[in-house]
């Protein structure tokens, strides 16, 4: 380390940390000592592509897989994530719809869980900023309040999309996405290859290709291979960060601590630090996703220009949310679901139905005997989400009646949705939350706990854009 004391110590280099630092550096242009501790190594996109192509890469063993980083007590439920520079920006699929305003007020509107301490209106300017930074492609009309054009034009509709958009208007839109519709800022245009975890053409936004230029800032010292596992606190102040590097324990002092690892490890760090908030680590989970294959009669569903070509909001909002979960329709444009009947090969649409779920207390994260490895306890889904699925199956045929549908085939729910939510929820007081609206810990007032762990509820919408906007919001209001 260059110094023995830092103004800001950040754990992690994923979305939440990077967008937080982006705003922090705008407000602190010089003279700060900033230490960033990244658990993994830099595994560049070019090297990831080699692995995907079946070629050798010297870096393929650089970072442990997620299965080795946690103790998963329920093997049927998966929690994939990426360690290393850029965190899960290296495995996300680039879906960036905003939340709906109602997602922040589920208690007031529907009597469900708690309201967020931040509103859509308060987050709105930071949504725009995050969308600019990621060069989001999207439509002019959206179901969530938004004025003006997205940074890039929307992707092209498929044949099915055109019909559904004509019927449902702004309730069925080209998905706002970080998979570029045009070449931009050093990224290619999406080619709809539909393997977005590692984009074959580098069209998808990642921290590595972002050109946000945070980690190049001269105030930042970035250390790889350093896993933060706890904080040393004195009273209600975190004084030091404890981490392991090269098998040895280290400690470093800091004024402000920022936890930007994923929710699993943020919870682990706090629990290892002696955090006694009964909600820390609790109410962890993600949305429920399931696929429905729509067999079409004499209609090729061609022309889509990206992986998730559209989002449908026909099952999303309304009074039904008092009784069962909201559902976001993700319209997938992928080669996997061709038909093998003569003349009908492309007569297929594939929708992923994503349901909000509740932060149940029986789903939680704890520490283990190994301070670096948290335990995940996941019992199952809420009745609220299951009822959402039941309702969907009743009403979907009617919603799709404008299409020439031969039949619908529902596949089993997926073991994961690729999102990790909850565990350090935000709220007004320590009685019902872990962090406040700026994601500052209610007890440790110099500790930020960023990311989707801070979500008060688990909306059906994808989390990344919102967690990035929250990081911008937090840094802007805190410094």
């Amino acid at each position, binding site marked *: 380390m260059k110094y023995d004391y830092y103004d800001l110590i950040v754990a992690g280099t994923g979305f939440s940390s990077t967008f937080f630092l982006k705003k922090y550096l705008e407000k602190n242009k010089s003279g700060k000592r900033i230490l960033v501790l990244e658990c993994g190594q830099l595994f560049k996109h070019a090297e990831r592509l080699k692995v995907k192509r079946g070629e050798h890469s010297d870096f393929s063993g650089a970072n442990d897989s997620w299965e080795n980083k946690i103790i998963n007590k329920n093997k049927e439920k998966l929690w994939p994530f990426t360690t290393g520079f850029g965190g899960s920006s290296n495995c996300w699929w680039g879906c960036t719809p905003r939340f709906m305003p109602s997602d922040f007020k589920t208690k007031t509107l529907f009597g469900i869980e708690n309201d967020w301490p931040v509103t859509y209106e308060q987050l709105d300017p930071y949504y725009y900023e995050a969308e600019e930074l990621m060069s989001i492609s999207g439509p002019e009309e959206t179901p969530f309040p938004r004025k003006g054009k997205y940074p890039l034009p929307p992707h092209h509709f498929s044949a099915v999309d055109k019909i559904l958009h004509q019927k449902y208007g702004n309730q069925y839109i080209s998905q706002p996405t970080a998979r570029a519709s045009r070449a931009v800022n050093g990224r290619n245009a999406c080619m709809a290859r539909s*393997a977005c975890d590692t984009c074959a053409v580098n069209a998808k936004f990642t921290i590595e290709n972002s050109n946000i230029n945070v980690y190049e800032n001269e105030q930042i010292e970035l250390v790889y291979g350093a896993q933060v596992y706890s904080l040393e606190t004195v009273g209600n102040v975190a004084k030091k960060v404890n981490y392991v590097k090269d098998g040895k324990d280290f400690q470093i002092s800091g004024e402000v601590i920022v936890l930007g690892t994923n929710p699993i490890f943020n919870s682990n760090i706090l629990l290892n630090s002696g955090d006694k908030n009964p909600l820390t680590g609790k109410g962890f989970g993600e949305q429920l996703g399931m696929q429905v294959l729509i067999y079409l009669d004499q209609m090729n569903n*061609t022309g889509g220009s990206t992986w998730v070509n559209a989002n449908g909001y026909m099952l999303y909002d309304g009074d039904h949310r008092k009784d069962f979960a909201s559902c976001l329709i993700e319209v997938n444009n992928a080669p996997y679901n061709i038909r093998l009947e003569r003349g009908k090969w492309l007569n297929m649409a594939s929708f992923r139905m994503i349901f909000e779920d509740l932060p149940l207390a029986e789903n939680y994260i704890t520490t283990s005997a190994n301070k670096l490895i948290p335990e995940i306890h996941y019992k199952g889904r809420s009745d609220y989400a299951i009822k959402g699925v039941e309702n969907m199956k009743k009403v979907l045929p009617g919603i799709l009646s404008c299409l020439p549908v031969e039949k619908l085939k529902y596949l089993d729910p997926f073991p994961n949705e690729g999102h990790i939510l909850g565990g350090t929820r935000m709220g007004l007081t320590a009685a019902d939350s872990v962090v406040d609206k700026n994601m500052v810990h209610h007890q440790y007032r110099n500790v930020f706990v960023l990311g989707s762990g801070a979500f008060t509820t688990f909306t059906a919408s994808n989390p990344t854009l919102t967690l990035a906007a929250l990081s911008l919001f937090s840094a802007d209001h805190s410094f």
Partner: protein
Amino acid sequence: MAGIGTGLLILPPALYLASPSVWKYAVKLIREELNYLKLEPAGLDEFVRDYFKTSSNNAIINLRWKTFYYLGFNKDKSNQIFELIKFYLLSTDFFIHKMDESKMVSYLGLYSPYKSSVPNPFSFVLYPPAD
């Protein structure tokens, strides 16, 4: 041998001893399912070799494909046959030729979103917008 398909299947010993190479079963299955298409023969053989390359020494896999053939399994009965045929079509120029049945179907290399010429048969690359 347990683990084949969804249950335990017992093959007559004579069948097992007299069976030709497993790859030939896969080729036969594809030809039968796609009998209305002109499949370039050498390419089909090469596809099957590539497809089974990582599992050709696996006794369970070998027996599974023999079983499929002799018991008349097809794509509707077996997800593995479905996957095999799907992979074959995605690995050829069939979709590049817009599913034209009059054209010979030629193997281009095992399907991969990272290597294939047009890895998504639905996409705008093949069906650009009218404007």
